């Protein structure tokens, strides 16, 4: 399947996708780079000339920078850990013969359908509200003092909300992988007297490694970009300001495009580091 004709056809057919994505990547990237070297305040005089590396220096030396990187990493890693671990456990459970498997599966998938703005609002108000939220009722029922989740335990709360949204995805991928596990192999191990934790560690987990890689890759892509969950719940307050959110505030709230763009460049660099790292693993793990 490779003639000159088919190869040139292939190039032609790939062109629209490649050109569009190249444009989508390069045009804003170059503009961002440009702005990052300008003093650019749209509401206070617009473009006021060359700034050199001032924006870059200001952005990293601002007290908000490192905490925001830290927050970003905590959220990403926390959500990944929760979804992968619980995903594996639930997948193993759902793989067992149970009554009503189809219905249970639908129940488990459902959060994925819920748009982030809705899930953030529902969690924030109906569950985490310190006065009327369901959690506060529950706490009071057990005689405990209700927690102001989104101010006192803001990061865990956000991690929990986001994990709830992504758990279905992780579970489903892992379930598919578990189902493709060769049962004869497991039975053989069982016959050989391998205890369950050894079977899990030496047979099941290695088999799931590819699926886990994919879960991590795809989720990281989306988690680095979470926005609505923070926008709607804390608005970046109480230590929930991720790098993305910090930049968003600089650009839209303080209308300092130069500074925000410098932040954007940092975020792009960070994303690329993560990307290169992930692509290495995935590239190896894909076929």
């Amino acid at each position: 399947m490779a003639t000159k004709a088919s190869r040139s056809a292939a190039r032609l057919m790939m062109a629209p996708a490649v050109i569009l994505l190249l444009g989508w990547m390069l045009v804003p990237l170059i503009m961002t780079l440009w702005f990052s070297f300008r003093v650019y305040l749209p509401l206070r005089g617009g473009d006021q000339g060359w700034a050199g590396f001032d924006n870059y220096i200001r952005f990293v030396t601002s007290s908000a920078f490192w905490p925001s990187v830290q927050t970003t990493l905590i959220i990403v890693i926390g959500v990944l850990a929760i979804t992968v671990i619980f995903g594996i456990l639930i997948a193993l459970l759902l793989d067992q013969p149970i009554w009503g498997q189809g219905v249970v599966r639908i129940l488990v998938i459902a959060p994925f359908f819920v748009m982030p703005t809705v899930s953030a609002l529902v969690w924030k108000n109906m569950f985490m509200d310190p006065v009327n939220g369901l959690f506060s009722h529950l706490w009071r029922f057990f005689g405990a003092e209700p927690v102001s989740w989104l101010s006192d335990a803001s990061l865990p709360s956000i991690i929990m909300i986001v994990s709830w949204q992504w758990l279905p995805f992780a579970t489903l991928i892992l379930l598919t992988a578990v189902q493709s596990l060769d049962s004869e192999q497991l039975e053989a191990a069982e016959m050989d007297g391998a205890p369950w934790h050894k079977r899990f560690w030496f047979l099941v987990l290695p088999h799931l490694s590819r699926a886990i890689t994919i879960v991590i890759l795809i989720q990281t892509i989306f988690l680095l970009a979470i926005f609505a969950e923070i926008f709607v719940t804390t608005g970046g307050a109480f230590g929930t300001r991720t790098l993305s959110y910090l930049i968003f505030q600089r650009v839209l709230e303080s209308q300092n495009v130069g500074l925000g763009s410098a932040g954007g460049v940092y975020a792009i660099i960070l994303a690329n580091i993560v990307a290169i790292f992930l692509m290495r693993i995935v590239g190896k793990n894909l076929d």
Partner: protein
Amino acid sequence: MGQIELKQVTKSFGDVQVIPPLDLTIHDGEFTVFVGPSGCGKSTLLRLIAGLEDISSGHIEIDGKDATDLVPAKRGLAMVFQSYALYPHMSVRKNIAFPLRMAKMDPAEIDRRVNAAAEVLNLADYIDRRPGQLSGGQRQRVAIGRAIVREPSAFLFDEPLSNLDAALRVGMRMEISELHKKLKTTMVYVTHDQVEAMTMADKIVVLQAGVIEQVGSPLELYRRPRNTFVAGFIGSPKMNLIGGEEAAKHDAATIGIRPEHIDVVESDGMWQGSVGVAEHLGSDTFFHIHNTGLTETITVRAIGDINLTHGDTIHLNPRMHELHRFDAQGLRID
């Protein structure tokens, strides 16, 4: 019409030359079989003819016209793939009609041709089924049906029978041969099974590592193999190839004698040895004989009803006029 000519055709994948310069003419109406061991480039050669791969250099002519740069569709050839390559989402009827539909043929004519093909290939009973609901043999027939409706100038087959079980294979082999007799269209057939080659071909092309070792009719190859490779490849069981002193006696580097050209005698044979494995097929018996004083194990075909078993001593007499002699390069000495 259906004459295919390859002129100095080569094919490389990257730096690896799979087909060194090769010349070959396939005449109109001929049943030509490419045969050779796995990986020798049979499929590649067929795909070059089909236009599914570009040749790296050289020319391909079909019916005297240069077809080197023609796309597959324009070459007027039809191909039957090893995996059948049926369209799984179409019924048998639609599968067979597909090439005609692509040719924008009149629907009535399409119907007529599809029905005719179904008739010839006994497809009528399952014409409305999907390929997934058919057995291997039936799928094979559909694939052939799809090829014949176009009335191509030549058919290309790439190991079409290798996915069938032994009994079905023999049946399909005959059907394809019959089809060739009926249609009288050029057929190019790839196989690694020399029995298929011998039984079906008008002309056999023996390939090794992309090089044509010999071209000829089945009997020509059987009687006068051009070199030790062809000698060993054509014929079943394999020709005994013997080197060393025994060959030197005949002024050759290697001598060859087919198992069916060695007689088992009571005593005083030219060779004497002990029976190793004895394969009793009923009609024939094949003995593998050790300790003849030759370095090679000798295979012999004897009558079916013979009472020798493992360990017995056996006396052999090769028929000297059936002896093949080869020089140090492995080429035949006449």
